[in-house]
């Protein structure tokens, strides 16, 4: 038995050793041309974000012009659904009545801290359409009672309402709705009365003084505002918005005894730039009609 085993082992060694040395002696490296085409050896999804060059896949166009990819292994054919012209690809992913919002503009109260002498508060209501077009109505109360330290009068406007109507255009309507960057236009109107009281004149030459009140005047003003702003959601439905506004008067009624320096809603007649700083409460009206998940599911269903 031992003899038999030794013989078998010897035969095995004899068979293996010549084969090894024979291959080693005959080893050659030859260029090999792959028969499977250009995709051989290329990993086109190596990096995150890479995509396959679909033009290299086997495909043909059907009679409707659709691209049909052919799985050359399984023999199945798949229509490229990403290029289907269904006519239903949405330009705006948010629904028409996307949200409503109400806001309070705290610009004037804040500016009063910094030395402004006019304005009270302002409210706004808006309807967000597709998160893109935002019609806005603004309503506010304006007033002033100002006696300049280095001048000779007291200018008064009682609490007076004013109105504006306009629209914003959100540039990032298909992005995260927590943020808005928009431009807008407003038409404003205000009708108000104003008094200039306690006017004190002093003539050094004649050594005379005079004190009088300018008769009360009623004025109506219409104006335009062009604005640019941003809005950021800060907590749940609460957002903060800031915008800068260029203003220009369209019409102002004639004033017999001098034009007012403060116009409710318009602000000081000096300068063309103003702003607003608002806290906004947003009320969602409808969820997204088309979400990214739905879009993916449609692709999957088509692929199947």
């Amino acid at each position: 038995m031992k003899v038999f085993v030794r013989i078998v082992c010897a035969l095995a060694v004899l068979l293996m050793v010549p084969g090894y040395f024979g291959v080693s002696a005959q080893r050659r490296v030859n260029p090999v041309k792959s028969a499977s085409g250009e995709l051989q050896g290329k990993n086109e999804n190596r990096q995150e974000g890479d995509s396959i060059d679909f033009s290299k896949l086997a495909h043909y166009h059907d009679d409707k012009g659709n691209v049909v990819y052919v799985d050359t292994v399984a023999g199945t054919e798949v229509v490229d659904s990403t290029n289907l012209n269904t006519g239903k690809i949405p330009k705006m992913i948010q629904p028409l009545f996307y949200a409503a919002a109400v806001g309070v503009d705290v610009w004037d109260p804040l500016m009063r801290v910094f030395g402004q002498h006019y304005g009270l508060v302002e409210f706004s209501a808006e309807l967000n359409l597709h998160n893109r077009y935002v019609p806005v109505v603004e309503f506010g109360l304006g007033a002033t009672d100002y006696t300049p330290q280095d001048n000779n009068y007291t200018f008064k406007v009682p609490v007076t309402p004013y109105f504006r109507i306009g629209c914003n255009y959100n540039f990032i309507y298909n992005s995260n709705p927590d943020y808005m960057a928009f431009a807008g236009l407003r038409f404003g109107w205000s009708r108000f009365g104003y008094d200039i009281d306690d006017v004190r004149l002093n003539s050094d030459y004649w050594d005379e003084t005079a004190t009088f009140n300018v008769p009360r005047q009623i004025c109506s003003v219409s104006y335009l505002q062009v604005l640019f702003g941003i809005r950021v959601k800060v907590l749940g439905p609460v957002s903060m918005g800031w915008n800068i506004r260029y203003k220009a008067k369209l019409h102002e009624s004639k004033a017999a005894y001098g034009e007012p320096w403060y116009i409710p809603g318009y602000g000081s007649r000096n300068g063309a730039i103003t702003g607003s700083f608002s806290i906004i409460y947003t009320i969602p009206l409808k969820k997204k009609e088309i979400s990214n998940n739905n879009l993916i599911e449609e692709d999957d269903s088509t692929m199947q």
Partner: protein
Amino acid sequence: MRGRLFIAVAVGAVSGAVLSGGCNTQGCTDNRSALPMMGFYSMATQNQVMLDSLVMGGVGAPGDSLLIEKGESRAWVYLPFRYDSDKTSFFLHYAYPGIDNEEMDDVVTFSYSSEPYFASEECGAYYRYRITGVEYTRHLIDSIAVVDSVITNVDMERIRVFFRISEEEEPGDDEGDLNEDGSDAGDAGGEEAGQ
């Protein structure tokens, strides 16, 4: 969330500070009261003249204070109107050799109506005047023209007084400012006293 809140508040605060600073007024660039400016002209040449020996003041001014004192060279003067009257008179004394006496003084009296007017936040309120008449003596004054009868705080010449004076004209100086501006002395004379 805190980051968003901080950004929103910071942007608002910075912009508010910038805008509030940028909207500051630049001050009153006009007068703070309605002061009619009267210019001195030569009737012969229709040019504005510089008078170096004219003494001028308001009739009845306290302390006999003057608007132009002797020795000043002036081509114009502001005329402060009285608040508590609808007429204000000014005298013109000529301290030139030969006429330096009170008998040769001229007196100009302006009649006007006044109404309160608010100019602006910076310039304040004042009385705005409308000149309704001018009366004057004619010792050296030839005529007085009121260019604009509404006197506001805008700093511009409203009244021109033309004197019967002779001045040495320099060669080539026959075209004065008035002619260059296209103003017509005849029109100026047409708005004389009493109108």
